[in-house]
């Protein structure tokens, strides 16, 4: 497989070098894969996207997209990449059709020419094509934005948090659309997301925090690397439970995960010891069970500051 994107040691600072958004990031994206950038807000995802989409100049480091340098050949890159910013950025006072036609025209093409690529997606919003973009629902806006980003048949698609603020059903639909684009058209997709469940949809993911990549691997590979024992803990006093778990001497880390707490423990402690400790603290209906690690557990384990959680 060929790398379609290569980034080497990208550094970006803001505010006269006082804020380091990217601290020397290097990675490669292979042709025809879905590459996920997973990380909390402020991790540097958008800066990285803007550099690759030729909107932002890096302080140092080099990057190529489809063999073209992002600084020197920025004009050519703009014809070969589609970029969907995190914020809806189409003309709200133009209709669906006008927006699509507008972007087709500015890229020097027509809707008909690349209709095959967007057909699946555009058909869903075509009945409303005379409606102004500002009056669309979140899911429809997102489909329109994706259509507009695809209308010039790019080789690479950059999606900056495409599913933020979209309902779970639309999110799922959206990832299915991306999978189809990859399979049917061989499109390379780089997407960022703060949602851990979406990470599993990617072929490879990079966990990013504070402007640094923590790890790059397939989602399965990342999970396989997780080597600590992990327990799910539940009791009748959930609020008190987290503090009690964290103050337990055998506890390594404890985080809230939906219905229960995920706990990693120091070597050599047993479930029975925890159970009796919790009973001593006044908990009843205590349930402790070993569980499989999820991406989020891996991310938590990899993060520098364990206190920051992904999504509150």
């Amino acid at each position, binding site marked *: 497989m060929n790398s379609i994107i290569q980034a080497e040691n990208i550094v970006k600072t803001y505010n006269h070098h006082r804020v380091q958004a990217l601290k020397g990031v290097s990675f490669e994206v292979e042709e025809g894969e879905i590459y996920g950038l997973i990380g909390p807000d402020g991790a540097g995802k958008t800066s990285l996207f803007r550099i690759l*989409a*030729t*909107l*932002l*100049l890096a302080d140092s480091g080099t990057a190529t997209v489809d063999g073209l340098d992002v600084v020197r050949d*920025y*004009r050519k890159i*703009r*014809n070969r*990449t*589609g*970029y969907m*910013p995190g*914020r*809806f*950025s*189409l*003309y*709200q*006072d*133009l209709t669906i059709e*006008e927006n699509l*036609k*507008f*972007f087709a*025209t*500015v*890229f*020097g093409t027509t809707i008909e020419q690349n209709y095959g690529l967007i057909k699946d997606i555009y058909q869903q919003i075509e009945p409303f094509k005379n409606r*102004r973009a500002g009056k669309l629902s979140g899911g429809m806006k997102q489909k329109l934005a994706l259509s*507009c980003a695809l209308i010039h048949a790019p080789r690479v698609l950059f999606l900056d948090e495409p599913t933020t603020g979209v309902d779970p059903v639309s999110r799922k639909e959206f990832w299915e659309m991306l999978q189809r684009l990859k399979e049917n058209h061989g499109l390379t997709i780089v997407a960022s997301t703060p949602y851990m469940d979406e990470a599993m949809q990617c072929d490879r993911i990079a966990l990013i925090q504070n402007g640094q990549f923590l790890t790059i691997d397939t989602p399965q590979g990342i999970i396989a690397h997780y080597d600590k024992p992990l327990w799910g803990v539940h009791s009748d006093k959930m609020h008190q439970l987290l503090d009690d778990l964290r103050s337990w001497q055998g506890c390594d880390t404890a985080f809230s995960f939906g219905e229960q707490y995920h706990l990693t423990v120091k070597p050599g402690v047993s479930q029975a010891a925890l159970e009796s400790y919790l009973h001593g603290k006044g908990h009843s209906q205590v349930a402790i069970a070993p569980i499989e690690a999820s991406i989020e557990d891996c991310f938590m384990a990899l993060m520098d500051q364990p206190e920051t959680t992904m999504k509150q």
Partner: protein
Amino acid sequence: MVLKYLIVKEFKQMMRNIILPIVFVLLPIGVINVLPRIATQEVKHLKFSVVDNDHSALSQRLMNKIAASSYFDLVGAFPNYNKALATIESCEADIVVEIEPEFEKNLITTGVASVAIDANAVNGMKGSLGSSYAAQIIADYAAQLRDERGLDASGTTVAKFDVAPRYLFNPTLDYKVYMIPALLGMLLIILVGFLPSINIVGEKEKGTIEQINVTPVSKIEFILSKLIPYAVVGIFLLTFAMLLARGIHGITPAGSVALIYAFALVFCVVVASIGLIISNYSSNTQQATLTFFFFMMIFMLMSGLLTPVASMPAWSRAITEVNPMRFAMEAFRTLYLKDASFGDLSPQFWRLCIMAVVLWAWAIASYRKNS
């Protein structure tokens, strides 16, 4: 092709704006119909009080003569100066005319009599114009008396001047004729300058600029797509305003209409470029609006719209040399009032052209697709 579609898009957005098309129609009507009627420097209906200490036939005639003028309305006659002054203090009167005791007698015996004029100068223009009008009427009266009696009271013949000013190009000193051409310039700077100044920054705020910046649209195309629609709007507004001036006030240009359009077009490019430059440097519409209004105020006050450039101090006259509004205004006024040829106005025209080229290039250079 791309440029054409970019321009079409600008027009679509302009027309879908709820307010803009209404402003395009109402603003010229307001500016051309209302402003010349209210923003007039003609002083009429000055209120005056009289203190007639003489109560003679001649003093009575003077009073009547002033009151008969269309410039003055008589508030009343007062027994002494202090009572008359009180009418100025209470803003009932603008001017007090005091006639000395023995006015008639002095006039007949010595040929010299004095009349005092006190004017309220809180509004400087009203005060100075009012007192000079009054002085003129009194001088007129003196001349009239001289003619009636065939000689001045002292019996000697004095040299006599008949001063009859003739006002060229605007014989009746009609303020509207003078104001409307300048208002055309004002109209253009308000709409054709202001709208571009909030356009690009508006796209920044809405985020749509991101999506444009990743397209291969060139900077020149992009800036042209922002400039051309406003130049077109400017020409439309000018036409509308000129028709209004003709329909409402019956004022038509004495000079070439084609030249007016030529000036207007170059002026539109200049002000739209200024707007776009401001828009490029601003990060939100508030900044852009305030910056634009700062420049607009200076352009208008230093353009000769209200006060002649020649009466400004030297340093400020130097600044007006780079004020596009000044040259546009001079051209519009000259073309409306006199039948000026292109040769007469070529200094103004070329200066505007240089400004247009420089500012347009600046607008392109200051637009950055990446940061």
